[in-house]
């Protein structure tokens, strides 16, 4: 029998309040939803805990419902459900990003909240215990040096969720519940540029839902990865395009290149009389300048920078 999983107890709260109480009462407790990221981490000794708080029995974390002209999506909704949800067709980048998360069997149980809270990844971190031990561990866990950037004072592990950038270009907000009540944050503000502490979640807090404003822009998502059928993004890009009398306005968000998903500064409006080749060339350069991929994966940072910028321009051209 496998001894790989550490000993832990599983608590099964039936409400958000119970889950928050359980998480707060056990400071080492970790929330468990689909488990596709967490169980693997526990197995590799990347997290230690004596308690898992299983969120699967909480009804309010389920459902995709109309909300002030937009949508409320429960954090516990599985990616397989999101992939097929007709209500999301009006936000094209989101189902497209969902459909390229991991493989189909992962998506059967993986959840929206789980993907938003996905741990950051690094070639010096996502290794077995003995591998990391022989390397003196790293700044993200048990060590004191970031092997990616030894001169720096923060962890450079890369945010690797596909869905956050798609939500960002559609202006989504995250609903968080915790010991001090409920708060709402734009997805953009939920993340920090620190691979060892990349979400804004405080002790006892969980993601309850995502709120989408009324649909508007056309959008798309694309990523590069090593294994086409199932892999984390080495870089990913979501693009939204809103048409108005002035012209077309693009919103872009990148994942996989920094410790957080990054919203690209607005590239300005593409007017009917503008030189589109010059515009998309400038947009490509803007993405190149915005991202800062590090040696966290198997592909060279420069390649990831160039390819995600090229993908951004390609998607924007298609949407224009």
């Amino acid at each position, binding site marked *: 029998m496998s001894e790989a999983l550490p000993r832990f107890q599983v608590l099964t709260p039936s409400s958000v309040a119970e889950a928050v109480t359980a998480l707060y009462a056990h400071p080492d407790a970790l929330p468990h939803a689909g488990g596709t990221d967490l*169980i693997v981490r526990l197995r590799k000794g990347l997290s230690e805990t004596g308690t898992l708080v299983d969120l699967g029995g909480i009804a309010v974390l389920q459902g995709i419902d109309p909300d002030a002209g937009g949508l409320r999506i429960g954090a516990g909704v599985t990616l397989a459900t999101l992939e097929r949800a007709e209500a999301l067709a009006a936000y094209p980048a989101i189902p497209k990003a969902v459909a390229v998360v991991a493989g189909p*069997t992962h998506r059967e149980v993986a959840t929206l909240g789980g993907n938003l809270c996905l741990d950051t990844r690094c070639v010096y971190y996502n290794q077995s215990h003995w591998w990391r031990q022989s390397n003196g561990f790293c700044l993200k866990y048990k060590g004191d040096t970031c092997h990616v950037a030894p001169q720096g004072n923060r962890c450079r592990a890369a945010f690797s969720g596909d869905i956050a950038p798609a939500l960002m270009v559609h202006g989504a907000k995250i609903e968080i519940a915790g010991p001090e009540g409920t708060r709402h944050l734009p997805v953009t503000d939920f993340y920090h540029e620190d691979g060892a502490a990349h979400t804004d979640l405080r002790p006892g807090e969980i993601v309850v839902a995502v709120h989408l404003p009324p649909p508007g822009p056309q959008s798309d998502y694309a990523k590069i990865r090593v294994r086409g059928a199932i892999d984390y993004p080495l870089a990913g890009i979501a693009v939204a395009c809103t048409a108005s009398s002035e012209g077309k306005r693009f919103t872009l968000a990148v994942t996989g290149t920094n410790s957080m998903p990054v919203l690209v500064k607005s590239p300005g409006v593409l007017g009917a009389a503008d030189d589109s080749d010059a515009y998309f060339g400038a947009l490509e350069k803007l993405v190149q300048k915005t991202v800062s991929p590090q040696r966290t994966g198997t592909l060279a940072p420069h390649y990831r920078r160039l390819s995600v910028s090229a993908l951004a321009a390609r998607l924007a051209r298609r949407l224009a």
Partner: protein
Amino acid sequence: MKRIVSLEINGRVVEEVVADNMLLVDLLRDRLGLTGAKKGCDGGECGACTVLVDGRPRLSCITLAASCEGTRVETIEGQAKGGHLSALQRAFHENLGAQCGFCTPGMILAAESLLRDNPTPDEDQIRVALGGNLCRCTGYVKIIESVLVAAAEVRA
């Protein structure tokens, strides 16, 4: 912590005392002797441990056994009925869909879930449905052909 879990496995109700940290693949293989679900990568990357939980494909190596309370689990051992191979098992056998056979139980269960949803899949849909299942004998062409043959038989 331990708890009693009651679930249906291949049509039989099973009650087992499981630790909270026990994985479904360990319950199946080590406790119940159902060794068809394979441990390949042990981390949700290869699909060799795929079983069906309530008809949907599930990676048993990253699924806690206790979370399967009240569910219906199907493994490769339950696919043959009355001494007859299932359509997919027969198609894999007759079309050389199995080489070493290690990935085959996972492949067949992922394909079984697809055919229940969509009895007329095209090649692309099969490739997507089996996207999480690795075959290191690199026999993907024969595997996809086997699923197409089984789909045709199920329809007939």
